[in-house]
């Protein structure tokens, strides 16, 4: 059977070419619109989160001020003058030296020095540690897994 070849008289009909151009243009517009929409979405979310961060930062400052304020209020309520007045209202009176009975306790060194923070340079064991899961890499994890099961492949020991 002989093969027959057909030759198209025109590469495209004019209306097809127009439709193609419109299609490309529409696709480009749609792509741009999609990009713009994505950009708008990301920007809007960033803005919302940014505002939230700003308000949290302001809230943090406000809370810090509130803490300082309340500490001062507490100090005022427990001031020497206020405590003396409360003691007197409760029927207490300053002790007279002759009325004091001393009891000597062997080894008692008196009130310990005030420690408001860990001493500089000293060991402090109370710091909470971040679990390893938050810091270890995938390789570390796999290595640990192998070690746990006794393969010792990645650890080299």
């Amino acid at each position, binding site marked *: 059977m002989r093969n027959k070849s057909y030759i198209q008289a025109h590469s495209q009909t004019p209306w097809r070419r127009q439709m193609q151009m419109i299609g490309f243009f529409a696709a480009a517009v749609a792509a741009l619109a999609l990009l713009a929409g994505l950009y708008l979405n990301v920007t809007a979310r960033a803005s919302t989160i940014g*505002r939230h961060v700003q308000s949290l930062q302001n809230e943090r400052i406000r809370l810090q*001020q509130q803490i*300082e*304020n309340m500490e001062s209020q507490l100090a005022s309520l*427990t*001031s020497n*003058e206020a405590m003396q007045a409360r003691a007197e209202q409760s029927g207490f009176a300053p002790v007279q030296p002759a009325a004091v009975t001393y009891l000597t306790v062997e080894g008692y060194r008196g009130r310990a020095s005030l420690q408001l*923070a860990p*001493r500089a340079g000293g060991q402090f064991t109370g710091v909470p540690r971040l679990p390893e899961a938050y810091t270890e890499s995938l390789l570390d994890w796999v290595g640990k897994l192998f070690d746990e099961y006794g393969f010792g492949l990645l650890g080299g020991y």
Partner: protein
Amino acid sequence: MPREHMWRYLVMAGFFAIFGALILYKTYSIQTSPQAEVFLRQGEFYSRERGIIQPPRGIIYDRNGNILAGNRTVYEIGVDLASVRDPHAIALALSALVGADYNTVLERASIPASPTSVYVVLASYVLPEKVNLLKSYDVTREAEPMDSTRCSNDPALYALRCEAQLARSYPERDLASNLLGFVNRESLGYFGVEQQYQSLLAGEPESIWIPVAPTQVQARPEVPAGASLVLTIDREIQAMVEDTLDAHITRTGAESGTAIVMDPKTGELLAMASTPRMDLNEFQNYGDIYTNEVPYNRAVGEIYEPGSIFKVITAAAALDQGVVTPETEYEDRGVYTIGGITIRNWNNRAWGLQTVQGCMQHSLNVCLAWMGEKLGQEKFYEYIDRFGFGHQTGVDLAGEQSGTVKRPGDPNWYLADLGANTFGQGIAVTPIQMVMSVSAFVNDGQMVIPHIVKAVIQDGSQYNVSTQYAGQPISAETARTMTEMLATSLEGESSLAMVSGYRLAGKTGTAQIPVPTGYEENQTNTSFIGWGPVENPRFIVFVWLERPETSTWASEVASPLFADIVERLVVLQGIPPNYQNIGTVSNSGAGGQQ
């Protein structure tokens, strides 16, 4: 597409092309115009706001953790000029609710808004209670929340802004005010600890740019708070010393008073009081209280001629050099001439044959002048130097004076000065210098430097301050001999400074007050310095009453003050009595010491 319609499309395309080209051209011309720089700067300016992160000022605690200086919230009230609707309403509200001056507020709120006048401060340091009144000004509307910077819910006051900020607060009011100092509205410390440790307490404020666009929000930098201080002061002892001092000033009619309590082993100041004092929360009254150049803290900032308490220095120098011993005898004839002046005893009497112990017990000027001359001017002034007179002690409080010591070789020094200096006249010292010098008698001859800060808390760590020494002016043996001699002196005189159950050592000082023409008549400075218990000293107490009226003698006014302080101090420090006093406390008046 019909060809006859083609030109329409071409016209439209041409129109849009030209329009687009014009936009591009305009954009380009704006970018390259001479005003472009200005526009860029303006854009930059409006895209962010400048802010200063002021770290909270460090807290000051006493040695037991009680807050002596903290922080509280106050408000700055300002007005956004562009939003002002009715300046009269603003002025009326602020004058009625905040107490601001009506005319001043009206004048400021009426300033027209411009690029250079955007915001004006109308009132500062406004207490939260007053801001609360503003926030709920219009009862028909819901009150503004406290965290909103808008001051009021009333539309006429919408332009008002209330910015919260921290200000210094002193919960103990006037307690320890002389040593704490205060902080002004510009956050600068004045006097005492607040001035001395200004940079540590204030921290480092940081200036930042805050972007207006929320998409550009960045984390604000962590600005560490100012360092907190733990003082060596004990609040209860401080309050007791102030109360006792005030009571004795009232009782004796003294012009002013000063008292210091120090731990002699460590140099920690347990209490320091002087008059006048003020409520530190109302520091603006400073000028009314401290008139005529009155020192803020007399304990470190005022010099005076100490009188006989200075005899302990002369005696210690003479003993240390081996010039005399406590048993060395001296025939007191009531007068002694040195450098052309005649020195007499406090009662103008001759006391006959006396030992050095007796000279100290009866506080004989003539004997001490003899001792000083025997020691020699060179050695005497060498010991003055060794004991730190004429120099600052280095105590960590602002405003310390160094005193006045004339030395041989100085143009205004004469041999007569040596005689006067031996019994504490013609020489000016500060109370803290006396306390530091006497610490040598307690620490085997070593002088401890007084200090007020026990620990610094910075960046989450506590740095404890260690004891420092200022040399060893005398030997350990001399120190012990002096203590024993002065304890025996008090017992021998049945001094009013004695406290039942405790063996104490000390010395009175009654000094004439110098004026340009000589010395004042019938006016004295009376002081006492003592320490105890002798077998294991836990405190040095110094007291000074200036120009008392009931008596001019220290033995009658300063000694009882010392005893009253010690009597309460031993209870607060939990020091049990362990001594049967030889001479019981007497109220019969002045003994041999004056």
